[in-house]
Each structure stands twice: as C-alpha cells, then as structure tokens.
C-alpha cells in the first residue's frame, strides 16, 4: 500500500523561499510544504522579529535521486553564503506515483 520516498527538509532564511521553491520543482520534485520558522544556529539567533530575521522550513517528498540532486545543488549554491540547514529521512507515502 505504501511506497518509500525521501523526505528532504530545508531550514533557511525566508528571503530564499521563492527561489528555492522554483529550484526544487525544477529538479523534479512535484510539490513542497513551507512553514514559518525561527531558530538558532552557527549564524546566531534568527528570531523572526522582523523581515530579514525570519526562517522558513521547507519539506519536499520526492524520489531518492531527486533528493540527492537537490541536496547537491543546495550544497553548491547556498552552503557557503547562507544560513541553511538540510536533512533527509525515509518516509512511506500513499500514492507513490504522486512524488
């Protein structure tokens, strides 16, 4: 009944939302989910108290190969200059063909 897919979660500064969304789709994902977030990390506290200090948390369910290519792209494009954290895990989805 279920199919195994990758769940790729990205936490990064809000300013990247639009660009990231487009890129994720371009790499072959069929959708994503975004929530507002705040947090702390190597770049200090990002408390979402005003525009430039907010984070987003983006989740992408996709095939492992797509997840890998998105991750590789983000690593190359954003790791050096942006506050961005990325992690992956396995999830079981219904309607596997959707992702």
């Amino acid at each position: 009944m279920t199919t195994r897919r990758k769940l790729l979660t990205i936490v990064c500064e809000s300013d990247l939302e639009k660009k990231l969304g487009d890129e994720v789709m371009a790499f072959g994902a069929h959708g994503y989910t975004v929530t507002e977030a705040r947090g702390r990390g190597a770049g200090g506290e990002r408390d979402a108290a005003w525009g430039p200090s907010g984070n987003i948390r983006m989740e992408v369910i996709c095939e492992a190969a797509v997840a890998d290519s998105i991750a590789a792209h983000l690593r190359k494009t954003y790791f050096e200059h942006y506050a961005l954290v990325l992690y992956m895990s396995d999830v079981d989805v219904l309607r596997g063909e959707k992702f």
Partner: protein
Amino acid sequence: MEPVVVFFLLGVAGGLLRSDLKFPPAFYEAISIYLLLAIGLKGGVELARHPLASVIVPSLVVLALGVAIPLAAYPILRYAGGLKRADAASIAAHYGSVSVVTFAVASAFLVRQNVSHEGLLTVFLVLLEAPAILIGVMLARGVGAGTAFGPVAREVVLGKSVFLLLGGLVVGWVIGPEGIAPLGPLFIDLFKGVLALFLLEMGLVAARQSAALRRFGPFLLVFAIVMPLLSAALGLTAGHLLGLSIGGLTLLATLAASASYIAAPAAMRIAVPDANPALSLGASLGITFPFNLIVGIPLYYQAAIRVNGG
C-alpha cells in the same frame, strides 16, 4: 525631541535590557504595508496638484543622485575600509537607497516646525529606492556579459516596498483630495501613531543590530556616521539645483542620508550572496538609522535653512 523618536529610544532600551517584548511577524508586516501605502497615498494626493510635466527634470536630477551616492560610497568602503568587493558593493547599495521611515520621521519633524514641502518629495522617495540597488549589483558582479539585471530590477520594482509606495502614489493621484477624505481617518490621522509603534519595534531590532556591528571594528562605525553627512551634502546640492524650499531640501537631504534596511537587504541577499548582511544591516540600521533620527534630521534642517537663505 520629536515624540515618535522617543518610542524608538524605548525600543532601544528594551533591546539592550533584553526585554522579551517582540512584535509578532504579521504585525510588523501589517504596519509596514500600512506605512508604505499611506506615504504613497499622501504623496499622490499632493502630486495631483502639480502638472505632471514639471516632474520630469527634477526626477532626472534625483535619479542621478541615486546613482552618485553608491558610486561615491563604494571606493570609500573598498579602499579606505579594506572591505571585500561584495561587501563594499552591498553596503554602497544600502546607503544609496533610502529608509522610508526616516523620511516619515523627517516629515513629522517638519510638521512640528510648521515647515511645508513640495509634493514631489514622495516621488523622489520612490525614485531613490531602486537605482542604488542596481548599481550595487553591478559593482559586485561587474557589468559583464553574463549579468542579468532584468530579474533584479523586476524584483525591486515589483517588490512590496516600491509596489506599495508607487501604487499608493498612483491611487492618491487618481482619487485626489476629495477621494482621500473618507480614507483620511485611517491613512492620515493614524499615521503618526502607527509610525511610533513601528519605531518602537525598530528600536528593539536596531539594538540587536548595533551589537552585531561591534565585531567589525571602528571603520564601519565611522562610515555609518560620516557617509550620511556626505550624502546629505549631495542631497542638498541636488535640492539647491532644483530650487527646493527649506522643507524640500531637508527631506531630500534626509533621503540621501538615509540607508535602506528593507528593500536593499532583501535584494542584495539574493543578488550578491557573498556579501555579509550583518555588516550592511549593522551599519544602516544599527548606526545610521538612529543617527539620522536623533542627530541627522535636525542638522539637515539647519543646513537647509542656510542653503535656502544663502
């Protein structure tokens, strides 16, 4: 002291004392939308009183000012400050662009002095927002073949700051003084109170930004105070050329002296990734913004009196 500035100081105190007061992000956003739209509307209504053709020459002069300031700031940052190319370019963009709230505080200051100003100034505000950002991108990337300015230009002009200011301007111009009357209780009467709320929040934020700046040594600190003075001088010169009144001169000097902390950061973050935003925000919001509010505006006003009287 201008009352709304006292709210800013309260915010700074809260930030320094680490109060847990925090505006919800949606509240901050809502207030920003309101302020930008209200400023645009007021400007548009003023503008409706002037023939549109008289706007062209002043606009070109002001656009030149918006190009000149970042071009002047860049070598200072790069060679006197020893900053790397991307940072120098990004900071130059911030200082060439404008702070809408500083403009609003200067307007409130003028109202208290009973000094009027030309309706055109809101147009100048809109015109000064974008060019410096494009110059900043060019300075960072070079004007090479591969550079696509289209997306950045699009981003800035359709970004919410310029869209709301410009949109407000057009709507104000279309509906005119009688059209705005029933909307006045919201967009005119409440303006100063909402500005005070916004300044309280910006005080909380600025306190944290100036703390971040300490890590980067004294050059930026000095720059963040000297650059506005230079820019104000450029603004006064441009305003003198245009034959502005004392009020108009004060506002144009303030616009020139002010540094962006809304439109420029968002645009530079995407277009010049290797610039450190802590540097540009620390300087523009942590130092220049309070400096202009407390010291700058009264100073530019005095200077405007001299320029206009001389």
